[in-house]
C-alpha cells in the first residue's frame, strides 16, 4: 500500500523570507504535497482562505509571517496573529484539531528554517493520521 503524504498548505507572507535562497526554494522546490499560497502580507490571509484549504482536503495548515514590529505594512501581522489564532481555536472546536496548525513568525536572520519546519510538521501530521472532518468541498475553484 502506498502511503500518501499529508497535504500541507503553506500560507506565506512575501516579505517574511529575508533569505533569497530560502525564497527560491519555497517557490520552485517545494515537495508535491505542499501547496504554497503567497500573499502580500499575513494580514491578508482571510479565515475564509484557510477554511477553503481545510475543506479542500488540507491535512495541515502552516502560516508564515513576519515578526511583530517587522511588518512591511506596520500591523498586518498583529492582525493576523489575533484573528488566525482565534480561528484556529474555533476550528478546533468544530472538529479540525489545532495540532494541524502551525504559525511561524519569521525572524529576519533565519536561514533554512522553513525546510526544517515543514519536515517536522509533516512528521507530526503523519502521526495524527488522515483528517476526516470538514473535508467537504467537491467543486473546484479552478473551473469557476
Amino acid at each position, binding site marked *: 500500500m502506498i502511503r500518501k503524504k499529508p497535504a500541507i498548505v503553506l500560507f506565506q507572507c512575501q516579505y517574511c523570507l529575508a533569505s533569497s535562497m530560502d525564497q527560491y526554494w519555497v517557490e520552485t522546490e517545494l515537495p508535491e504535497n505542499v501547496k504554497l499560497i503567497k500573499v502580500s502580507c499575513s494580514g491578508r490571509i482571510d479565515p*475564509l482562505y484557510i477554511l477553503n484549504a481545510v475543506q479542500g482536503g488540507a491535512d495541515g495548515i502552516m502560516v508564515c509571517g513576519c515578526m*511583530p514590529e517587522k511588518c512591511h505594512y506596520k500591523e498586518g501581522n498583529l492582525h493576523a496573529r*489575533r484573528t488566525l489564532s*482565534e*480561528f484556529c481555536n*474555533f476550528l478546533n472546536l*468544530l*472538529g479540525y484539531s489545532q495540532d494541524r496548525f502551525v504559525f511561524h513568525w519569521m525572524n529576519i536572520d533565519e536561514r533554512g528554517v522553513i525546510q526544517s519546519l515543514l519536515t517536522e510538521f509533516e512528521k507530526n501530521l503523519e502521526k495524527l493520521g488522515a483528517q476526516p472532518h470538514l473535508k467537504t468541498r467537491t467543486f473546484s475553484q479552478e473551473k469557476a
Partner: protein
Amino acid sequence: MPTTRDQKIQAEAKRLLQEGVVDVVIGFTKGTLPYKMQPCFIQHAEDVEQLELNGLCSNNLAVYLNHRPKDERTAIVVRGCESRAVQTLVLENRHARENLYLIGVPCIGILDLQKIQQHEQDPVLAIQEEGDQVHVTLKSGEKTFQRSEILHNACLHCNHPLPVNADMIIDEAGLFEERTFDKSYLESFRSLSLKERYQEFTKEAERCIRCYACREACPMCYCEECFVNHSRPQWVDSTIDPAGQQAWHIIRAFHQTGRCVSCGACERACPMNIKMTYLTDLLNQDMFKEYDFEPGLDPALMPPFLALGEDNEKFGVGPEGSHAG
C-alpha cells in the same frame, strides 16, 4: 399619567416627536398574526398609540439603523441586547450617537414559540401575557405556562438584560437582574471529543437551506456584499451541499467574534430551527477569556480584532530574537 410599560413608551415617543427631538421612533407594533409583533417606524406624534412591547417582539431593532440614513435623528425602543448592538454599531461608525435617542426598557425576555409547540402540537391562536404567566390559546383550549418555561434560550443565557448607555430608562421592573453568564452549556460542548463536536456541528449545519434569514435579522451583518454572494471568485458554494452549509455557518459566526451581542435574533429568524448562537457564544467566551472583552458594554473599547494591542507575551513571540514559534 402613564401607568403601564406600553403607555410609558408611548408617552416618551410622543414627547420626542412633538418636541422635534427625533424624526422617527422605531419600535414594535401588532403584527398580522395575533401572536407576532412587527417592527414599526413612527413619524407622527398621533401614531404613537401603535407602539407596544411584549415578550413576542422577537426582532432586534438595531438592525434598522443599517438601513436608515446615517444623519436621521432616530429614537429606538431598546432592550438589553438591542442597546448593546446599537453601542457596537456606533463604535463601528454605522450611526452617530448624537443622532440617536435610546428609550431603554428593562427586558422581560422573548418567548420562543417553538418551545410552546414542543409542549403542545395544536396550532397557537393567541398569546396573552400577565406578569410571570403566559396564557396561550390553542385550538383545543387554553393553557398557562410560566414565562421561564418558554423563554428563548438566548434570553435564558442572557448576561445583561438591562439597557446599557440608554438616554432614558422606562421605570418598570424587568424580568431579570444583572447576573453572571450561565456557561454550562458551552462547557458541556467544549468537553465533547473532537469527533462529537464535529457531529454536533454537522447535525445543525446540514439542515441549512441557505436562505440567509439569520444574516438579515442580525444587526452586525451589514456588509454591502456578503462573502457568500461573491461569484468571482466564488469563495463558498451557494447550494445546499455540506461544504457550503458548513462554510456559511463557520465564517458567519467568525465574523461576529467580539461583536455578537447574543440577542438570538438569528435563531428566531431561522425557518429550520438551527441552533447557532452557541458558535458566537463560544467565540465571545474566548474573547472574554483572552482580552477581557464583552461586546457593547464599554462605549470606548474597540473589539479585540480592531484594537491591536501588544500581545507578544500571550503568543510567546518577542519583538527581537527569542521566540517560541
